[in-house]
């Protein structure tokens, strides 16, 4: 009875609140005592879990540019229902990554320096600019959703007028910095293990982010489509799954071809810490989901898609963490395991992301977009889908995410 009086607190809400609180405390500790006392970072291992998390967040937010490009530049209008969720995911993802970067910086009070102090030779400089510009693009792409809610329509027209160049710029910026995260490691050929170091790092980072971005939005559409209402039809989901499978195949070929060309394949003939990490990443994230997604039955089954997309995301996480941590443990022989404070900050920020997402979904028109789109779009969007899609507010709808 007593629980009834409180606003419905689900188990997930309790967990995420706890994580956010723990993360906040950890962040306070980090700012009070400095990086040395609160992290396991050292001179030999100056980048750790948080950089890996940034790669992950940005990669999962890649749906923001792939879906926008597919729908608004390639005119695949049938995917319109997932544009807003994709933009929202990307927007939250980028804001969180910026937050983590600021926590990670030794001098957070100097975070604005890249704005006025440029070094065109630095990948980090390019990334900071792309992050700032693309987050601005995302906020403009997201603004109409808020403006619709508060019924201020005049800026929407204005944003709509520049929407095409805006989207193109957004896609280009994404292409640049998604690949540049790989370029960060081009300069450490002596430190990064041969299984991960390659001149093709930017290319590989870009290809894999397409797969992970689409897998993320596909997973979201599965989670958000519960309760008998479908955000995307089975047919469209299967199509997205096909695109993921193709991307995974391309990635696999480029990756193995590159190992072959650099003569690094022999690293895989023995079972070492590194080769096991490599096999895990490639099997879990690329080979197995590719094999799964080849089957039509899996592409059209919810359970099949759940498992395939989760594997893609797990493999993607492995890949980024391996590049950022495992591969760097080889030289100078140094192991790194994040401290509790590093872990709590990361978990807290993840929980914050999911919480913000579930609240935004509740109060802003994220899934009602199709309703307001033109009749032509509606008609197109409806083809291949038995029922229109409006999602009801499902209490704790985000709980399984």
């Amino acid at each position, binding site marked *: 009875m007593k629980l009834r009086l409180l606003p419905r607190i689900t188990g997930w809400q309790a967990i995420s609140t706890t994580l956010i609180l723990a993360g906040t405390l950890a962040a306070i500790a980090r700012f009070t005592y400095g990086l*040395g006392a609160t992290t396991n970072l050292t001179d030999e291992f100056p980048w750790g879990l948080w950089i890996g998390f940034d790669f992950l967040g940005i990669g999962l937010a890649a749906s923001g540019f792939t879906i926008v490009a597919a729908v608004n*530049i390639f005119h695949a209008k049938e995917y319109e229902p997932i544009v807003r969720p994709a933009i929202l995911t990307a927007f939250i993802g980028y804001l969180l990554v910026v937050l983590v970067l600021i926590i990670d910086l030794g001098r957070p009070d100097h975070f604005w320096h890249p704005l006025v102090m440029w070094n*065109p030779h630095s990948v980090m400089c390019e990334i900071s600019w792309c992050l700032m510009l693309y987050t601005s693009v995302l906020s403009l792409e997201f603004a109409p959703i808020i403006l619709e809610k508060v019924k201020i329509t005049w800026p929407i027209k204005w944003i709509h007028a520049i929407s095409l160049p805006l989207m193109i710029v957004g896609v280009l910026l994404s292409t640049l910095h998604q690949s540049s995260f790989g370029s960060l490691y081009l300069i450490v050929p002596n430190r990064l293990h041969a299984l991960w170091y390659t001149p093709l790092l930017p290319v590989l980072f870009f290809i894999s982010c397409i797969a992970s971005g689409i897998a993320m939005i596909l997973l979201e559409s599965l989670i958000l489509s519960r309760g008998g209402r479908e955000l995307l039809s089975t047919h469209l989901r299967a199509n997205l799954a096909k695109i993921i499978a193709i991307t995974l195949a391309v990635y696999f070929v480029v990756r193995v071809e590159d190992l072959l060309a650099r003569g690094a394949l022999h690293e895989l003939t023995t079972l070492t810490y590194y080769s096991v990490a490599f096999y895990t990443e490639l099997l879990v994230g690329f080979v197995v989901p590719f094999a799964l997604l080849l089957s039509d039955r899996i592409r059209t089954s919810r359970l099949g898609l759940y498992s395939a997309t989760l594997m893609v995301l797990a493999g993607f996480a492995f890949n980024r963490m391996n590049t950022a941590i495992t591969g760097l443990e080889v030289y100078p022989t140094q192991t790194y395991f994040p401290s509790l404070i590093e872990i709590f900050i990361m978990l807290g920020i993840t929980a914050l992301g999911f919480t913000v997402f579930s609240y935004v979904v509740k109060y802003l028109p994220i899934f009602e977009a199709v309703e307001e789109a033109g009749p032509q779009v509606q008609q197109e969007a409806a083809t291949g889908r038995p029922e229109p899609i409006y999602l009801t507010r499902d209490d704790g709808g985000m709980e399984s995410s």
Partner: protein
Amino acid sequence: MLIDLTLCMGCNACQAACKEENHLSPNEEKNLSLTAYTALNKYSDVYVRRLCQHCDVPTCVSVCPVGALVKQGDGPVAYDADKCIGCRYCLQACPYHVPKYEWSSTKPRIQKCRFCAPRLAKGQLPACAEACPVGATLFGDRDELLLEAARRLGAEPTKYVPRIYGKDDVGGTSMFYLSSVPFEQLGFDSRLGRVPLPMLTMSALSKVPNVLSVGGVVLGGIWWITNRRTEVAAFEAAEKKGETPRPEEKP
């Protein structure tokens, strides 16, 4: 500077002088640290002096997003803590693992050898070169020191390994080493080539303008084509129904 490892006796006078010059705690240290901008690493009977190599094309300078590290014309790679944002890319990228970070501070900076830039400006020798009692560290003009190193190699070819380390490693550095033991056995990374590491990044970064221009045109083109296709399809559908007249026939 030319550092002849065959002459060094390991007296540590260089470190002591360095610490005095930079007002660092005077205890003897075996490795580079926040309070040791130079240190002697012992390999059986050879002492290798570590310090910032002040590369000609410095990796740290190229990676710093805000230009807090600068290569000065007369050699030193200088650091400006007021610009530094603390991203630690220099620590990650330095091929010699030189920069050290003030991890325990809440306003951390990096610390490394400054090549005694203030002394050089006054026409003095770097403190370590001045302190060396046996002339194992010589300071001078880069080209002249290279000639001197080549002369020593030529005069005693059996004593030295035939290599001036730093002449063109990672694009050349301000520190040269001569040794009687192969450098690979003295903790010098044999995987570093002669190409300056920043070139590896530039191969990717130089494509940025192309991605922007070509990508912009291609995406614009795709939009135009797919948009046209939708328009044509809509128009044809409408025409079939005979509902809409051709647009140009509109009054």
